Structures are given as C-alpha cells and as structure tokens.
C-alpha cells in the first residue's frame, strides 16, 4: 500500500476558520471532509425572546462580509410574517444597497482572495508588488461597492440604516448623484475585470451540478423570486423546508444541507448565472460571451469570471436604479406585528440565504431558522475536492495541496456564516 500524507493546517483567504482532509489509498480518494472548527455562536437560539424588529441588526452580526444579505433576508421574512410588502423606490433602494454588497464582496474575492491562486501569489498584497495597477483597480472597485453601502447604510460593515419596512432615512436625489459618477468609472473597471479574469489560467474541470437559485421573471435576482433549479425545483420561499434537509456531521460545526431525495446542490454565482443568464443586463451578457462563458457554467474554477460578470451587472443595475430614483414619501412603511410565521430567501453574494421566523402578536421571536449559503455548498465542495484530487493524482504534493485550496476558494466560503472554516489536510496512504 502506498503511503503519502499531504497536510496543511489552516486554509487561508477564506472568511472564518476550518480545515480539510483528503484520504488517498493506493491512488484512490477514499474520504474527503471539510472540517469546520469555527466556534458556534448560536444565533438561532439567542434570537428567541428578542423583538422582531431587532432581527436585521442581530443577524447582520453573523457575517461582516455580507451583513446586507442578513438584513435583507431578516427584514423580508418579518414583513412576510406581518403581511407587508415593500415596493416602489424603497424596493429599489434595497436592490441598490444589495448591489453595493455584491460589488464589495465579489471584488474582494476576485482580486484579493482568488486571483492570487491563478497567478501563484500567497496574497493580493504580494500580487500587488508585480501587478500594482491591477490590484489598485480592484481596491478602487471594491471601494465603490463599500461606498454605496456606506451612503445608504451609514457604514459598510453592519450598516445601521436598514429596517423592517425600508430605511430609517432615505437619501435625497442629490446625495446619490456623486455615486453615479463613480459607478460609471466602476462599470468600465468591472468590464476590464471580466476581460482580465478570462485571461487567467483556468483549470479544466466540469461537473454536472444541480444549480439552485432565485429566479424572477424580469430581473437578475437579489431580494425576490421563486426558488428554481435545473432539475425541476420550482417553489416559493415558504416551501423551502419541505424540499431541503439540514443534517449534522461529526467533523463540522456547520450543518450540511441537501435536497430531499437528490443530495448535494450548488448555490451562488454559477447557479444564479446558469439559471438567469437572459436577465443579466445587456452589457453583462455581452461581456460574458466575449469572455468565452456559455449560457451555463459548470466549471467552478470559472467562478472568478462569473463573479466578475456579476460585478459588472451590479454596477449597471446600481446606475439604472440611481438614474430612476425619486425619494419616497416616507423612508419606511409601517410593519405592525401579528402572530405568524415569515419566510424569505435572498441572494447573498455566496448564494441563497434562507430565514424563517415565528413571532407572537407582540412581535416576540419564538423561533428562528437561518440557512446560509456556505453550509448549503459544503457537500458540493467536498465532492469537487474528490474530483480535483482524482483528476490530478500525479501532481506534486505542493501543487495538489494548493489546487485543493483553490477548489475550496472557488466557493468564496464564508465559514463565519456557516457556523453559525479552514485548515487543509490531505492524508495519503
């Protein structure tokens, strides 16, 4: 029996703490585990007994990289429980702040966390020594995303202006004008990002995934839509629990999620893109075609190109919203509590984020369920790793280890979210 052990103790350039182990016996992968040792923080439990209008601020603290996603899913779920719909300019402003988060989160990942893998650098900061203009473009693009969040939300991490029913204060038309100017630069920078990402050496690797994403008849999905898949899933957010199961595994502090009767599924940019290509803005569709992406993308290493296309779409959409903006009469619609259960799914940068709350007639939270995108992708990541290792058994230990890390980073995993993750350990015998 051949014995080789490849071991890395802490996977970097991911959000949170985890490890990964691959066991290879006589040239065959026998076991892959993604260990999530990020300590649990018990959000679902500590929400019990809190007031319904506290959910957006409390749950935003699950993740410093995608706090807007938590605020949006929480607000929509509570509004669902209370029978309130937020539309018009308030709905548009919610899409605008979500555009900011996609731009900020995706650009951080594309330039600072993922691209260094393709070009052989330990970090974006190291990459900047040889490619200063590229990294500088990335940082300035990321900044535009953060500035959208900061203008609408007060600050980019854990913004303070979003609430049930809308916002505490709506911006004036004049306040948004300078942002439009910056977004026109950002749209060009995003287009250059798509072209640059397409030139990166992308490993050949494809799998036949079940893609799960929101789908809306007229828009690329942010806050609303039906939950769809390429294998026939077509449900309302409130039917989520009938179709998805969360199970606990010994090696992880994050629950694993599967589709009943079918197993692992993929959420995030690849799924959104492959299910909603025709609802991307024309400039984003055109850039995707020119970057060599098909209408469906099954290579997870190409996620860096798909994320870049989504950055471009978000810049374009943000501009469109600002151009059509008229301040709403009131910054929020009234949301009065009533006993019931509320459900919402929104598209966080890493994929669908499900919230469900049961509240009483005073608005006290009786129970809460939160399913973040990274916990839904855990099983797919493990399957990808198996595939990547099997396809590259002759690669040197050092290169294979790095390739495995890169395969995990394809998902921009947010371990802080998933535990409510990463060290790499490959054991070869």
């Amino acid at each position: 029996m051949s014995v080789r052990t490849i071991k890395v103790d802490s996977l970097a350039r991911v959000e949170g703490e985890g490890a990964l182990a691959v066991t290879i016996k006589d040239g065959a992968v026998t076991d892959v585990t993604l260990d999530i040792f990020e300590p649990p923080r018990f959000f679902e439990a500590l929400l019990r007994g809190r007031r319904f209008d506290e959910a957006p601020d409390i749950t935003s603290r699950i993740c410093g990289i995608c706090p807007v996603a938590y605020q949006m899913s929480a607000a929509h779920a509570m509004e669902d429980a209370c029978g309130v719909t937020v539309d018009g300019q308030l709905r548009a402003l919610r899409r605008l702040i979500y555009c900011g988060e996609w731009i900020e989160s995706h650009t951080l990942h594309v330039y600072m966390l993922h691209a260094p893998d393709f070009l052989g650098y330990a970090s974006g900061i190291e990459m900047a020594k040889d490619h200063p203009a590229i990294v500088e473009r990335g940082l300035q693009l990321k900044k535009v995303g953060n500035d959208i969040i900061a203008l609408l939300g007060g600050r980019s991490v854990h913004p303070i202006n979003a609430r049930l029913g809308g916002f505490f204060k709506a911006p004036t038309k004049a306040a948004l004008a300078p942002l439009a100017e910056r977004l026109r630069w950002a749209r060009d920078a995003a287009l250059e990002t798509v072209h640059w990402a397409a030139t990166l050496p992308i490993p050949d690797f494809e799998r036949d995934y079940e893609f799960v994403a929101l789908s809306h008849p007229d828009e690329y999905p942010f806050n609303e839509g039906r939950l769809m898949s390429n294998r026939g899933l077509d449900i309302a957010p409130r039917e989520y629990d009938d179709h998805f199961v969360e199970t606990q595994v010994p090696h992880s502090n994050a629950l694993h999620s599967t589709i009943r009767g079918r197993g692992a599924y993929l959420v995030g940019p690849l799924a959104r893109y492959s299910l909603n290509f025709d609802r991307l803005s024309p400039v984003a569709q055109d850039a995707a075609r020119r970057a060599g992406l098909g209408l469906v993308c099954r290579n997870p290493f190409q996620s860096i190109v798909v994320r870049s296309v989504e950055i471009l779409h978000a810049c374009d959409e943000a501009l469109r919203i600002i151009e059509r903006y008229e301040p709403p009469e009131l910054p929020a619609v009234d949301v009065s509590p009533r006993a019931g259960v509320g459900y919402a799914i929104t598209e966080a940068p890493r994929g669908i984020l499900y919230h469900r709350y049961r509240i009483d007639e005073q608005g006290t939270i009786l129970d809460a369920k939160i399913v973040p995108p990274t916990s839904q992708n855990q099983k797919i990541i493990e399957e990808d790793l198996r595939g990547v290792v099997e396809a590259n058994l002759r690669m040197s230990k050092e290169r294979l280890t790095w390739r495995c890390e890169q395969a995990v980073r394809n998902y921009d995993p947010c371990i802080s979210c998933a535990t409510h993750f990463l060290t790499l350990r490959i054991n070869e015998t």
Partner: protein
Amino acid sequence: MAAPKPKLAVWKFASCDGCQLTLLNCEDELLDVAARLVIADFREASRAVVKGPYDLSLVEGSITTAKDAERIREIRTASKLLVTIGACATAGGIQALRNVKDVNEFISLVYASPAYIDTLATSTAIADHVRVDFELRGCPIDRAQLIEVIGAVLQGRRPRTPSHSVCVECKRAGTVCVMVAHGTPCLGPVTHAGCGALCPTYSRGCYGCFGPMETPNTKSLSRGWSRLGASEADLARVFRTFNADAEAFRREADAHER
C-alpha cells in the same frame, strides 16, 4: 542598514470577520500600510505565514472554547503589543448573550447531536484571559480608528481615540438630538464615541454598538427612556446586545430584569 519592519499578525476567535475585513476595507491605505509592515500572519488575506514573535497582534473575536482560551495565551506570549479589535474581543460580542442563559439549551436548539459541539458556557472578552495593551471599540470598529492605532504603533505612541460619549460627536457634528427633539430613545449619552454618531445622523437612536463610555450614567438614561415609554423588559433588552457583557451595560440590564 534600515531597521527591520515591524511584524503584524491578525488573529480570529468567535466573530463575524467584520473587524479584520475593516483592514482590507482600507482601500486607499492598505498597500501603503502593507509596505511598512511585514504581514506575518493574516489568514483572511494570505496563505503565507511568518513565524513569531510579532510586534503587533490584532485580535478579533471572543473566547468561547477551552482550546481558544489556550490559543490566546500563546498569542500573548508571542506578541509585543496586543490590541483587541471590536466588541467581541473587547466585551464578548452578541454571542455573550449565552452568559445569561443555559448554553446546553442553546446547543440543542441549533444542533441535533450536541455531543459533537465543543463550547464553553460563556463568551468572554480577551482581557478576561490575558493582558491587553489597547482595546479598540465598536461592532464593527471604525476604519479611521484602526488606521490611527496601526499608525500609532508604527510611531511608538499611544493611539488617540476619544473616550467620551456619542453625544459629544452629535454636538460637534451639529446633529439635532433625536431624543430631545423627536422623542426617539437613544443610547448615545452612555455609549463610547468612535462611530461619528452614525445612527442619529440617520434619524435613528444609537443602539450602543461601541459599548459603554468611561463612567456612564446608565441609571439616569434608563429613567429618560422610561419617560419615553420604555418598559423594564425593553431596558433589559437594549443593554443586552453587542456589548452585553461589558460591565456597565451588564449591570444596567440586570437591574431591569424582573
């Protein structure tokens, strides 16, 4: 020969990553700062690791496992200066809400097989475990304050971060008092400055995410809230959020629990 560059490490405990992200969010300053330091260990940003000791360790997150209680002692030993960044590291964070509940009930509510989960009954601040040289407040920390702390360390001086209340920030900015003018309950009078009085600027009452200021008069503020209609349960709740385990807020919350 030039003096060797100081070595920076960024460490994570139980947290949301938002405070370390604040360093990556210094888009205009990041490459300059990186050029003046050796980034020795910053897992969120780099797979390269340089061994200690470290001149400056930034610590995010709270202590919630026995293993982490051990890890922070090792980090302290390896660090010349240790600065906590954010409410989790400084006051236990939102996860410190478990400190007033039964943690086993918490585990069983979230996980089907609680036996797999390794956790302590409490979430505690870094200073409860090791000596801390400086605490940077906020949930999240403020970007400008982080740059000030790193700059001060590079220059060998004490960071200049005001310890007065959010009220002073409102007065300086000329923001109308939301509590006096609109009857909106606000924690600004007892909350540590640093955010630039964001919430009142957005017509919202401060919710205390920077934790207590020095010597806050929480009792007097609670009376003000009561006059605006806050119940005892409301008062216990509002002091128990992101800095629930900071002493002044913990005492005030306990005083209003039935």
